[in-house]
C-alpha cells in the first residue's frame, strides 16, 4: 500500500514540478515574441492558466506525502540513524519544513496570480512563484535521493 502511495506521490510531484517550472520560467524570463522554437515556447506559456492546477497538485502531493511520511518515520529514518547518514536525514527534515512554508504560501500565491493584480504586483508574483518552484525542486530531489538510499520495497 505504501509503495503504491509513494509512486503516486512521486508521479504527482513530477506533474507539479513540470507545471511550476514552466510557470516560473515564463514569469522570470518571458518571451517578447513567440518564434516557434522550443525555448521560446517554454517562455511563452499562458502561465496564469497553470495557477489553480498547481495549487491542486501541490495540495494533493502534500497529502500523499503526509501519509507516506508515517512509514518514513517508522522504517527509513531509523535506518538513516543506524547508518549515521545525518546529511540525508537533515535534508529530509529541511524538506518537511520548507514544504510546510510552501503550503502556507499557496493562498498568497493564488492571490497574486489574479488577473486584476497582474501588473501591480508582478515582482511579488515572480518571487513567490520562484520560491515555490525551488521548494518543490528541493523536495523532489531530496525525496528521490532518500528513496534511492533506502531502496524501493526493501
Amino acid at each position, binding site marked *: 500500500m505504501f509503495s503504491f502511495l509513494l509512486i503516486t506521490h512521486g508521479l504527482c510531484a513530477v506533474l507539479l514540478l513540470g507545471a511550476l517550472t514552466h510557470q516560473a520560467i515564463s514569469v522570470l524570463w518571458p518571451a517578447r515574441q513567440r518564434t516557434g522554437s522550443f525555448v521560446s515556447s517554454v517562455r511563452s506559456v499562458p502561465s496564469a492558466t497553470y495557477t489553480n492546477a498547481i495549487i491542486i497538485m501541490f495540495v494533493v502531493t502534500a497529502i500523499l506525502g*503526509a501519509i507516506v*511520511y*508515517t*512509514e518514513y*518515520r*517508522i522504517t527509513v*529514518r531509523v535506518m538513516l540513524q543506524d547508518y*549515521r547518514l*545525518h*546529511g540525508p*536525514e*537533515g*535534508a529530509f*527534515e*529541511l524538506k*518537511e*519544513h*520548507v514544504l*510546510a*512554508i510552501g*503550503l*502556507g*504560501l*499557496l*493562498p*498568497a*500565491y*493564488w*492571490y*497574486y496570480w*489574479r488577473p486584476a493584480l497582474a501588473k501591480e*504586483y508582478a515582482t*511579488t508574483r515572480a*518571487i*513567490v512563484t520562484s*520560491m515555490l518552484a525551488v521548494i518543490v525542486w528541493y523536495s523532489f530531489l531530496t525525496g528521490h535521493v532518500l528513496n534511492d538510499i533506502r531502496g524501493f520495497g526493501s
Partner: protein
Amino acid sequence: MTIGRAFPVFGIAFAVIYIASVYFNWALLTYHPQLVQWGPLVQAPKQGPAMYWYGWLLTATLGASAIAAVSLALPAKPFDRIWSILVWVVPLVMIAVIGYILRVYFLR
C-alpha cells in the same frame, strides 16, 4: 476581493508561527505511527516515534488564520504594499532560520 487581501498575511504569519512551533514544539496534535493513534497536544513517544509535524501544521494554520482575519481591519494603503514585500521576505528568513536550527545534521 476583500478576503483575498488577508492571504499574504496568512502566508507571513504561517511561516513565523510554524517555525516557532517547531522550535518550541507547540504541536496541537501528536501522531503515534506505530500505534496508528492520534492524541491532543504534545505527547511523549509511546511505542515507536511520536510525530509532531501534523500538530505544527495545525497550530500554524489556526494561528495564521486568526492573524489574517484581524489584518482585514487594517487599511489597504499602505499595508497591501507592505504585505507584498513581507510575503516573500519573511518565509525566506524563516527558511534560513530552520536551516540554522538544523545545521547540526550537516556538521556532524
